[in-house]
């Protein structure tokens, strides 16, 4: 067992997911199975293999520094549940 129920609760909270007691048990089992499976790779000797930081064999993809036309505001707010024509409106964020 690598993952405890506590870990599941912690990760769920960080991801803002509401998980029932039943689901917690289920997820704990599933996540452990996944990690068990992946941990098989730990048996492979990787001493002479460079760590992979990206899955694609690509590098140095850039765009030139040119400003282009922006999206017009109507389109900007098209998917917004709430807006005032200038801003997105969200539930009050309390600071401090």
């Amino acid at each position, binding site marked *: 067992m690598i993952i405890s129920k506590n870990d599941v609760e*912690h990760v769920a*909270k*960080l991801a*803002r997911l509401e998980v029932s007691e039943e689901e917690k048990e289920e997820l704990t089992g599933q996540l452990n199975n996944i990690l068990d499976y992946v941990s098989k790779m730990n048996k492979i000797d990787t001493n002479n293999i460079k760590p992979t*930081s*990206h*899955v*694609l064999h*690509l*590098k*140095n*993809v*850039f*765009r*030139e*520094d*040119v*400003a*282009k036309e*922006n*999206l017009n*505001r109507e389109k*900007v*707010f098209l*998917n917004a549940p*709430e807006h*005032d024509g*200038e*801003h*997105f*409106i*969200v*539930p*009050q*964020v309390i*600071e*401090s």
Partner: protein
Amino acid sequence: MEYGIVIGLEVHAELKTKSKIFCGCSNEFGGQPNTHVCPICLGMPGVLPVLNKSVLEFAMKAGMAINCEISRYSKFDRKNYFYPDLPKAYQISQFDLPICKDGYIDIDVEGETKRIRVNRIHMEEDAGKLVHTEGYGSSAVDVNRCGVPLIEIVSEADMRSPQEAYEYLTKLKSILEYTEVSDCKMQEGSLRCDANISLRPKGQEEFGIRAELKNMNSFKGVLKGLEYEVKRQTEILESGGEVVQETRRWDDEKGVTSSMRGKEEAHDYRYFPDPDLVPIEVDEEWIQRIKDELPELPDVRKKRLIEEDGLPEYDAGVITASKGLAVFYDECMKGYHNSKVVSNWIMGELSMYLNENNMEIDECKIAPAQLAEMLKLIDNGTISGKIAKTVFAEMFASGKDPEVIIKEKGLVQISDEGELAKIVEEVIANNPKSVEDYHNGKEKAVGFLVGQIMKATRGKANPALVNKLLKEKM
């Protein structure tokens, strides 16, 4: 007990590229809310961010100016957290392979040079802005700033007083200004500074428990915020208490810091490599090309002003701390020979008017060549040093050439001996008491008489000539 102070700074600087870091939206400051946006910086699903090449080159340039090693291999990671100013719910940043590492900045501490190490510089995107509407139970979000390119410069905890932190920040700002990668305006938020500060008993190696300070919106604010924390933590430790490791917010108006509770889990960012962005590989040739573009940096420029122009160290330091002033000085020296006179005018009248009007040097109407011209007019006797101040004020206000102002206002110095002699004789005749005092050895009486002559000529009399004539005629 005596305590030692330990401070480290994290500085965010907005890069002044034309477009944002991962999309082609305008990077201009301000703009109507939510007008500098596109699907990429709005965090729409299915979009593909692509790195702006200038952002990378600006970051490299800043790194070289701060004596960093440039990473040959670098990548982007996702920093995950939920906040309404971050549409994607993750910030694209660099975690374990930042673009620059292991640099340093030298600062002056009581006449000695102290080296402050820089741990790393990484590239990342800025978040949006929350506009709080009082009492409506809601907040408004402006996404314009999302995706504005930033570099974060992380120092080691090498500073030992709030003053040292202030010096470091000042020097860092000046270096970034010289390299022209950022505007560095703290008030506009293009330069932001967070601090870690802890105390430890004098002589103890191990660091104490630190507080993280945020929201210091000016250079003075950084100094005052840190000074307040030193006081607060000293009081806690002296009363036998323990400093809590937490983030605290500086309130500039009240002059206090207060705890920002409720973000205990905020540090669990679950970084992982961003699969949308491919790694960056930089070769020697590219590094050399950027190196060749580096301008003369503040320390080198200061040395030049001292060694080649013969300026006192203090003057050279003040002038080179601001790139704008340094350029103004150099330009002015192209038309005038005496460096100390130029520096006096820059540090004196020019700085005074800039401060009074809350202006930056690049907003100043006086061209350096015009100041040089004015200084020549003092030397050739057209105007006196005192009248020059009036002329300068007018130049500052209107940007007109000094000759034009002198002509318009009739400020030409009276150097005609005959004309001046008449006035001198009048003043002598009208002030017999002062003349008597002078004959009785009171040198001070001369000053009074000179004053009277200046008054009669509205300051236009040639002072040297006045002195000569006065003494002859008494």
